[in-house]
């Protein structure tokens, strides 16, 4: 059961990821991306990371994907939904890079000694994550929040600049 479910979710992630890069319609790519992101959330559930899975859905599907779809809708004419591909000449170079990357990842996959957890899964991860964020990883947490604040101010400045 667990193996079957995992295989289904993994197949969904890979299939929708292929769909994202092969479809010619930008908005279809965005929708396929939703499948990929959901699948990754499903994989987190398999790792007993329920909080992380919900975060993945709320941030990526509910936030970033909506932004992407907004971007596609606003930068595109409403009538034309097909896009023109302009990067054809780069194909040979891309093929070489992708092949090397694939070989590297495959080698890594087979050479890594995968660690199987022998401890029992924790029931509630929220408290552990919260405590870790506010003690051990406090600096990272604060740096990330300052970065987000700067991005927010920058976006507001760009959007509200009155002299154009």
């Amino acid at each position, binding site marked *: *059961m667990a193996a079957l*479910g995992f295989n289904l979710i993994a197949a969904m992630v890979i299939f929708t990821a292929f769909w994202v890069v092969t479809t010619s319609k930008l908005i279809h790519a965005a929708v396929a991306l939703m499948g990929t992101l959901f699948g990754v959330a499903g994989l987190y559930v398999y790792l007993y990371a329920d909080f992380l899975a919900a975060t993945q859905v709320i941030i990526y599907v*509910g936030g970033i994907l909506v932004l992407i*779809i907004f971007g596609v*809708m606003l930068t595109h004419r*409403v009538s034309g939904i097909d896009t023109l591909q302009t990067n054809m000449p780069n194909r040979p170079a891309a093929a070489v890079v992708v092949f090397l990357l694939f070989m590297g990842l495959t080698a890594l996959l087979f050479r890594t000694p995968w660690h199987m957890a022998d401890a029992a899964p924790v029931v509630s991860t929220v408290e552990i994550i919260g405590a870790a964020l506010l003690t051990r990883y406090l600096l990272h947490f604060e740096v990330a929040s300052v970065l987000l604040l700067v991005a927010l101010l920058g976006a507001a400045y760009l959007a509200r600049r009155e002299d154009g």
Partner: protein
Amino acid sequence: MSSWTDSLVGFISGIAWLPDMSAGTIMVIVAVLLGLPVFTFMAVNALVAVYFERKVSAFMQDRLGPMEVGIFGFKGGKKFWGGIGQTLADAIKLLVKEDTIPKDADRPLFILGPFIIFGAAFTAFIGLPIGYGLVISDFNIGVFFISAVSSVGVIGVILAGWASNNKWSLYGAMRSAAQIISYELPLGMSLLLVVMVVGSLQFSEIVLWQEQHRWFIIHSPFTVIAFFIFMISGVAEVNRTPFDLPEAESELVAGFMTEYSGFRWALFFLSEYANMVIISLMTAIVFLGGWLSPVAGLLDMAGVPAGWYYLSGPLWGIFWIFIKVATLIFIMMWFRWTFPRMRPDQLMYTAWKVFIPFALVNIFLVGIWELIFA
């Protein structure tokens, strides 16, 4: 705490005459057994809620239809039975109406849109309890799960609006997305307040805390503010008047639903009324003590010893939570038939310049309050 999923899995694997099944097969059977009632509930809820809504509008605005169309001769007369005919006709119309897809629409996305919205509403019911242990699955991240699932619905709205290839649909979808994303923040922040005080994201823990202390609506001045922010943002989340700009009939025909008809349109409809129930259930559980009896709370405060007149227990719990949900839904309908629609700029002003600052300061102040009084 036990949940329906756990008990059903235990029950089915315990039946002697059934052949041995793998855990996976049992899970599938349990999912179907629990999914069908949720679906039925959503459908029946829409029928009843539409009837209720028509009657509320008729009483508040002197509308004639819901008082005239119906079955007469029964006790209650026009006041109660009038409008039943409209509900029946509505259901039959939705099921048999021709389903049209515009020629220039993006077919796959046009079909997918309503299902995403419906799926989001459907999934949310998994985590919502209606009594102690009466829940499909009692997640320990319950509140967060509902927020995550309901944030997915907006994608369906945008896709429906985009795929219709229609200006009104697109404007409706844009407005809806902007509105839902904006109001998600005050909604989440007012929930955060309660989570902070309780120290758990689990719905059953939140109700348990309220049983041991007091309901959140009367807990502190800041939770009262949070309740109002949550309730009003909730109305905005389900796109109802005075926040129904996405489907403003006078300017946008029907917003993102303009091109939909028949059963696809009915899916939007089911989800809208299901979302009302979800928001009301969450408000009832988080701020109004969920399945706790208000009588028991009052008597307990007055020092009366426990007895049958406390009206609390598992069955009373279901009764109380549905009374609370029905009251909240009535308040939403009351809003709809008495308030005029807001302008988009007023809508954004309310979310970003009123609710979010208030909710943020609220979180800070409730922390201080808890440090002093807890």
